[in-house]
C-alpha cells in the first residue's frame, strides 16, 4: 500500500519536473476517470456489503465440508463466485476449512472462483468491459476454476 503511494508520488514528481502541462492533464484524466466510475463502485460496495453479511465465515465453513467431495467442489465454486473477501481473510479461512476436513479440491475451487469470478463485482466489470465480454470472462473463469479443482483432486489423490 505504502509502496503504491511512494511510486505514484515519485512518478508524479518526475512528470512534474519534465512537463508541467502534461502532468496537469494527467491529473485531470485521473479525476475524470475516477468520477466516471464512482457510481459503479457504489453499486459494487453495496452488493459486497450485503454479500458479506449473507455469507459470513461460518456459512462458508458449513457449506464446504459436506459428505460428498463433488458437492464440496460445487459449493466451493458457488460460494467463491458470490462472495468477495481479501486474500488475507480467505486463505486463513481455507486453512481452517482444511483442518475441519474440507477436501483440497473444494478449497482449490473456492479460492480460484473467489479470485477470478465475481458476481457482486459484475456491475463494475460490465462498466469497463461491456456486459458481453464481462459475462464471457466470468463464465470461462468458472470453467477454469472447475478444471483447476479437478486437477488438484487428482494431484492430492482425492479422485481417481
Amino acid at each position, binding site marked *: 500500500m505504502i509502496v*503504491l503511494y511512494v511510486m505514484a508520488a515519485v512518478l508524479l514528481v518526475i512528470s512534474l519536473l519534465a512537463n508541467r502541462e502534461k502532468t496537469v492533464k494527467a491529473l485531470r484524466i485521473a479525476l475524470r476517470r475516477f468520477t466516471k466510475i464512482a457510481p459503479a463502485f457504489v453499486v459494487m460496495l453495496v452488493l459486497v456489503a450485503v454479500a458479506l453479511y449473507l455469507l459470513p465465515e461460518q456459512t462458508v465453513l458449513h457449506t464446504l465440508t459436506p459428505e460428498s467431495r463433488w458437492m464440496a467442489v460445487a459449493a466451493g465454486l458457488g460460494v467463491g463466485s458470490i462472495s468477495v473477501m481479501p486474500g*488475507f481473510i480467505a486463505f486463513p479461512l481455507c486453512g481452517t476449512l482444511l483442518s475441519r476436513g474440507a477436501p483440497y479440491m473444494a478449497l482449490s475451487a473456492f479460492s480460484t472462483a473467489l479470485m477470478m469470478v465475481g458476481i457482486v463485482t459484475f456491475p463494475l466489470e460490465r462498466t469497463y468491459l461491456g456486459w458481453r465480454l464481462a459475462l464471457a470472462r466470468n463464465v470461462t473463469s468458472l470453467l477454469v476454476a472447475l478444471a483447476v479443482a479437478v486437477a488438484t483432486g487428482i494431484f492430492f489423490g482425492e479422485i481417481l
Partner: protein
Amino acid sequence: MAVRRHIWPIVLGTLFTAFVLISVAVGFDPGKEMGSNFLGFLLQMLKVLPPVFVVIGLFEVWVKTETVERHLGHGSGLKSYAWAILMAGGTVGGLHVALPVAHALRVKRARLGVVLAMLSAAGICRIPMTLFEASFLGWKFTGVRFLVSLPLVIVTSALLGRWFERSGYELPDLEGR
C-alpha cells in the same frame, strides 16, 4: 441526462443508505452490520484508488500508444502474455484495481486477449497473496493451482480475445465527452 444514466446507482445508494440509517435507529443488527461492512470496504477502496488513478493518468499522458502496441498489441507474440502475467503478479488490490488498468491498456491498443489474461491472472498470482496462500495451504497446493490455472487462463483469454476482436467488439467508451 447524467441523472438518468446513473439512475441505478442513485436508487440503490439511496435505498441502502435509508435502510442502514433506519436499522441504526431501530437497532436492527443485520442492517447495522451491512452498514459497517460498506464503510469498511469504502475506506479500503479510498485508500488504494487515488494513487492507482494518478498512475493511470500519467500512463495515458506519457506512454505512447505505439509502445504499448509493440509490446502488447497484435504481432507481439507469446511474450506479451508473459508481460500480462508479470503485471498481474505486481498488482495490488483486486479486480477494482486491475479493471481500470486493463481498460487503460486496451485504449492504448493492447491486444484484447492480453488484457483479459492480465485481469484473470491478477486474481491468481498477486505476489503477496500467493505467499499467504502457500503459508496456509502449502506450496504443493499453490504449485498445482498455478501450473494448471495460468496456462488455462492464457489459452482461454487468447481465444476469447480473438473471438471478440473478430466480431469487432469495442470496450465501452469511458472518455466522457
